[in-house]
């Protein structure tokens, strides 16, 4: 047994902008144990519920995260709508689905870029982000924002997309899909990339269940579970398979996310084909009373929204359980026994969003 050393990692690290701190117990170059600590970017967004009424709180909760901001807003709205027991118009459901899948696309492309950056492939990193840029432009054209979209509302959505805009988007996605397919071949086929990802960070199916992994992290360990199957928004009307991989390693996680990109293209196409005409919002009157629990599949995994109302316009509680938080335990597991050089890469494979986790 070699000499043990403790190396602090983060919260500021050149590879990883996410503010997570790890105490890495090393034995030579091997990580024996990783002790995480978070709490560097806590902003107290959940406590703002006592200061803002339930309609205005939407603008607070969607600022939980800069990547899944749409889904945070949507999950909260779905929870409040469930308390009111209102059914939002079908068109609004489809619009939400399209924006959700666009969020997934840009999140996964961002992640692929960050992964390339983590294993030192700068050129690939910029290629991925170049693709992502087009999606951000589409978001800006349709919602008015590139990061925070502010199009959700309790009872529907605030902005509509006309058929010309939707057709334009589909045409753009068609051309983008070919480019992304060409680009992702590098991730799946390249020898150097494979050597960094294959058999690194093994998380077996049993461990994934035991430690409560969610999202692509879980699906890459061969568990077939996707919250979208619950049929929220318009997912019930759309045809899609759950993408899994039995690789159980970093390569598997990369593969699952790449395939989810193509699945998102297909889901957007289906949604644009099926989108009905009609209203995009229903009026919601009065104050909510009761509680609701909503599960939403974010790009990083399953997020849970819990909202408790007391009959006034101020809610008692709005709680989010973010996917990154649940994925931290599997992360600690996969860090045990890994090489020191693989630590940033392994942290990235859970697609961490510490700002989400701490709110």
């Amino acid at each position: 047994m070699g000499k043990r050393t403790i190396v602090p990692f983060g919260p500021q690290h050149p590879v990883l902008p996410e503010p997570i701190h790890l105490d890495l117990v090393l034995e030579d170059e091997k990580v024996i144990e990783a002790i995480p600590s978070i709490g560097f970017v806590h902003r107290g967004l959940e406590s703002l519920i006592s200061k803002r009424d339930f309609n205005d709180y939407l603008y607070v909760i969607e600022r939980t995260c800069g990547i899944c901001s749409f889904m945070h807003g949507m999950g909260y709205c779905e929870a409040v709508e469930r308390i009111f027991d209102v059914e939002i118009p079908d068109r609004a459901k489809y619009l939400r689905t399209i924006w959700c899948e666009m969020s997934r696309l840009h999140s996964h492309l961002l992640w692929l870029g960050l992964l390339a950056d983590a294993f030192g492939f700068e050129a690939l990193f910029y290629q991925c982000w170049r693709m992502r840029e087009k999606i951000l432009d589409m978001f800006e054209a349709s919602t008015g924002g590139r990061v925070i979209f502010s199009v959700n509302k309790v009872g529907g959505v605030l902005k509509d997309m006309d058929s010309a805009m939707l057709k334009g988007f589909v045409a753009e996605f068609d051309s983008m899909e070919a480019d992304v397919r060409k680009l992702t071949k590098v991730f799946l086929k390249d020898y150097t990339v494979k050597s960094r990802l294959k058999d690194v960070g093994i998380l077996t199916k049993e461990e994934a269940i035991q430690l409560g992994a969610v999202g692509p992290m879980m699906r890459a360990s061969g568990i077939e579970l996707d919250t979208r199957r619950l049929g929220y928004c318009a997912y019930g009307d759309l045809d899609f398979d759950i993408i899994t991989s039995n690789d159980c390693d970093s390569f598997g996680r990369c593969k699952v996310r790449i395939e989810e990109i193509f699945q998102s293209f297909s889901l957007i196409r289906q949604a644009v084909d099926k989108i009905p005409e009609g209203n995009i919002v229903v009026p919601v009157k009065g104050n909510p009373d009761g509680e609701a629990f909503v599960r939403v599949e974010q790009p990083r995994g399953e997020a849970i929204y819990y909202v408790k109302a007391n009959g006034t316009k101020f809610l008692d509680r709005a709680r989010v359980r973010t996917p990154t938080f649940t994925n931290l335990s599997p992360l600690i597991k996969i860090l045990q026994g890994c090489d020191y050089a693989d630590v940033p890469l392994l942290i990235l494979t859970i697609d961490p969003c510490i700002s989400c986790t701490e709110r």
Partner: protein
Amino acid sequence: MLKIMSFASHALSNLFHKPVTRNYPFVERKYPERTRGHIDINVDDCLFCGICAKKCPSDAITVDRASKTWSIDRMGCVQCENCVNSCPKSCLTMANTYSAPDTKAIVDTFQGKVEETSNAGGKIVFSAEGCVYCGLCAKKCPANAITVDRASKTWTINEEECAKCGACVAACPKKCLSQESGEAAKATAGGEVKNDLDVCVFCGLCARKCPQEAITVDRASKTWTINKDECVSCGACVDGCPKKCLTME
């Protein structure tokens, strides 16, 4: 060999590709129509009701009803468009260009029209039914635009002189004078909403128009109640009333 040259085609195509980036600052970015850049206000239409300030999640807006000023902390604004969506007078708009950057916080203040008796009100409408030709309206008129002759039972108004201030409407003991809606609320904004229950048909339009949900109307029991704590005196109910039974004092 192919396994390690998988990126070569990208590298080669990038060599012969036009740059993806714009040649900033020589080529400026064209923002889409919907871009949420900065808030603009048409301050002449503003009632200074303060709903925008209440709705603003980052408390960037300050409204002073007394001095009729509306100000926004440009750096504090998070461009959520909530104020634009909740403005009862639609005087706020979102422009698609960003406000200029600065090292200090920029607070833009807009000054509304101060004079109370500007031509902000609507046309005075006279109803001969109920008029007792007492002449109070003529006495109250600051512009001396009204002439009342009790003997011949005539009521005339000089439209050119009339300042549309609404003083005659307020003075009329028989409530036979009214001011046309729309613009009327502006002149009277800022006060308490009163309902003439004799005229009211309890249709509930005012409750629907109220941005603060401060009004409750029950047609069955013929009750009309207003939550004064919630009311922001925006005048949206007065504008929406088909019977003109709502007034602002």
